[in-house]
C-alpha cells in the first residue's frame, strides 16, 4: 500500500521551505489541544503550553502547575469555556509564539479569547479565573509571579475581569474547569477549593 499526501500538513520550522507558500500560517488549530482527545465528552486534558475550548459538558483539566499559570475563561450565558496552561510571560515577537502561542501568557490569552469567540462565546461577557504561578524555586528568578503579573495585564487590556484567583505561594496545583464555570483547584497537599 502507499502512504500518500494528505491535507494534514506538519507544522514547525521545516514547513517554511515548502514551495506552496501556505505553510507558515498553519499553527495548531486553537480549539484542539495537542495531548487531548478533543471529542471526549467527559474530560479534556490540557498539557503544558496548550489550550482547549469546549461548548458542551466536558471538564477541562490541567495538572502539575508549578510556576506555570492556568487561565480559565467562561461566558456564563452560552456556557462556552476555555482553559490555557501557559509557561512563560511574554511571547510577543518570538518565532515560537506563532507555532505555539499557548506557551506564553500574552499570545496564549489572545488565542484563547479568539478560540472562545469562534466557539460562540461573546468576548465582552468573558470572566476569568486564574490559578498557579507558584514560586517553587529560588533558583529560577520568580517566573511564577511574572506569569501571574502578565496574566493580570493581558486580561486587563482585553477587558476581561478576573473574578477569582488562587496564585503564588510555593505550592503545586492541579485544576478542573467544569460546566458550572467554577475552577476547582487542588493543591499538592490534597486541599481542594472551588473558585
Amino acid at each position, binding site marked *: *500500500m*502507499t*502512504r*500518500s*499526501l*494528505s491535507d*494534514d*500538513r*506538519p*507544522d*514547525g*520550522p*521545516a*514547513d*517554511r*521551505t*515548502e514551495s506552496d507558500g501556505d505553510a507558515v500560517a498553519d499553527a495548531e488549530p486553537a480549539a484542539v489541544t*495537542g*495531548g*487531548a*482527545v478533543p471529542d*471526549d465528552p*467527559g*474530560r479534556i*486534558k490540557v*498539557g*503544558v*503550553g*496548550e489550550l482547549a475550548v469546549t461548548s458542551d459538558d466536558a471538564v477541562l483539566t490541567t*495538572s*502539575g*502547575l*508549578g*510556576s*506555570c499559570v492556568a487561565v480559565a475563561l467562561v461566558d456564563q450565558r452560552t456556557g462556552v469555556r476555555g482553559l490555557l496552561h501557559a*509557561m*512563560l510571560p511574554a511571547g510577543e515577537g*518570538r*518565532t*515560537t509564539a506563532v507555532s*505555539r502561542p499557548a*506557551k506564553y501568557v500574552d499570545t496564549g490569552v489572545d488565542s484563547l479569547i479568539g478560540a472562545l469567540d469562534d466557539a460562540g462565546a461573546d468576548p465582552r461577557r468573558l470572566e476569568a479565573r486564574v490559578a498557579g504561578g*507558584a514560586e*517553587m*524555586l*529560588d*533558583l*529560577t*528568578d520568580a*517566573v*511564577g509571579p511574572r506569569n501571574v503579573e502578565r496574566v493580570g495585564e493581558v486580561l486587563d487590556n482585553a477587558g476581561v475581569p478576573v473574578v477569582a484567583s488562587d496564585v503564588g505561594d*510555593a*505550592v*503545586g*496545583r*492541579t485544576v478542573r474547569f467544569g460546566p458550572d464555570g467554577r475552577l476547582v483547584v487542588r493543591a*499538592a497537599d490534597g486541599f481542594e477549593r472551588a473558585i
Partner: protein
Amino acid sequence: MRVDVRALGACNRLAERGAKQAAGALSDLTGTDLAVEVTGASVASGEDLAESFAGRESIGVSVGLRGGLDGEAVLAFDAANVDALLSLLPGGQSMERSAVTEVGNIALGGFLDGWANYLGKAIDMSPPRYFEADGAAVLPDGALAGDGVFLFESRLDATTTDLDFSIYMLPDSGPFRDLIVGKTAPAATAGGEADGGTASTAVPYESLSTFSSLAKKGSANAADNIAMMTGLETTVDVSRLRFVPLADVPAEVGTEPHAGTVFELQGEPSGYLAILFEESSAAAVADAMLPMEPDEPLGDMAQNALCELGNVMTSGFIDGWANVLGTSITHSPPEFVHDIGASTISPLVAKLSERQDYGFVIDTAIQTEGIQARCDVYALPDERELARALDRLSGP
C-alpha cells in the same frame, strides 16, 4: 556528518504527530480514549540500545519502507502490556495475531502519513509482518551494526482506564540520518530563533553517541555515590539521552508527590539537574542515611540528608561530562523540593524554554536494593551550549 538538533526537533514533531494519529486510530478501534503523553527521540549506539532492550519481550509488526523513506519501521508493544491492549480489541485474546497486526498496521500507517506529507513523496509500505521478539531482536536489521540509530518512542496513555504503553519507531538508521542532514537541516534554518541561528546547534552525529555513553557514565557515578553514602546497593535501571519537547517533561515526571533536590549548572553546558524520588522512596533513603529514625518522614533532618546526597550525586554526574567535554561545570547548592512531581520541574522547564522548545533530557532511574527506593535524575542542559561543547569534542 552533522546533525542539526533543531532538525531533530522537526523530526520529533513529526513523530509526535504520527503518534497522535496512531493514538486516534487506536482510540477508534478500542473505544478507549488514548492520548500521547510523551514523544522523544533517543540517540543511542547499537550497543546501548541492545542493553536497554535486554530482558524485554515485545510483540508487534514490522513493515518495509520504500520511496520517500527507505528502510524498515517497527512498531512494538511491551509483551507485558499486550493482554491489556487485546482485551480492548474486537475479538480479544483469540484474535491476538491478527488484532496486533491490524493495530500495528493502522498505527504505522498514520505515523508514516506524516512523514510522506513532509517529504512531499509517497512512502510504500510492504504488508505488515507480525513478530514476537526477545530483547534487541525487535530492532530492524542493521540497527545494531552501525554507530547509532534514532529511536522514536511515544508513550500512550488511556485517559479513562489504567492502560498505558509505548510505541517504538526505528527508521533504518543510514537512510534516516541522510534524511535529517539532507532535508531538514536547511529547513530548520528558516525556523531558527533570531538570537541563535543553526550554526550553533549542528553537531557531529558521532558526538551525540559519545554524549549518550557519557550520560550513562554519569548515572553510574551518581549511583555509586548513593551506595557510598547510604550503604545500600544500587543499580542503574535505565539511562538514556533523549531529545524531547520540553513541554512534555513535566507530564513525564507525573502528578504523584515527589521529593528531592534541584540544581542549577553553570559552565558549558549550563542548565539544570533534578533528582526526584517518589515520597516513600525519599523517606526510605533519608532514613537509611540518618543515625536514628527522624521525627517526621520528610522533616528537616531528612531534607538535610537528601540535600547532602543530591550534592554528591550531582558532582558524580557532571564530573564525568566535564572530563570528557574538556569544560568546567559547577553546580549551585541544592534546593530541596517536595510537591507534585510535575510542579517541581515546571520552573526549570520554563526557564530553559525561554531559549529552546526541545531539549536533551538525560533520564536515569536508579534503584536501591534492600529497601524499595527509586529515583529519577533529569539533566536538562542548554541546547546551544551542549552543541558547542559536543562540536569541540569531535575537533579537527
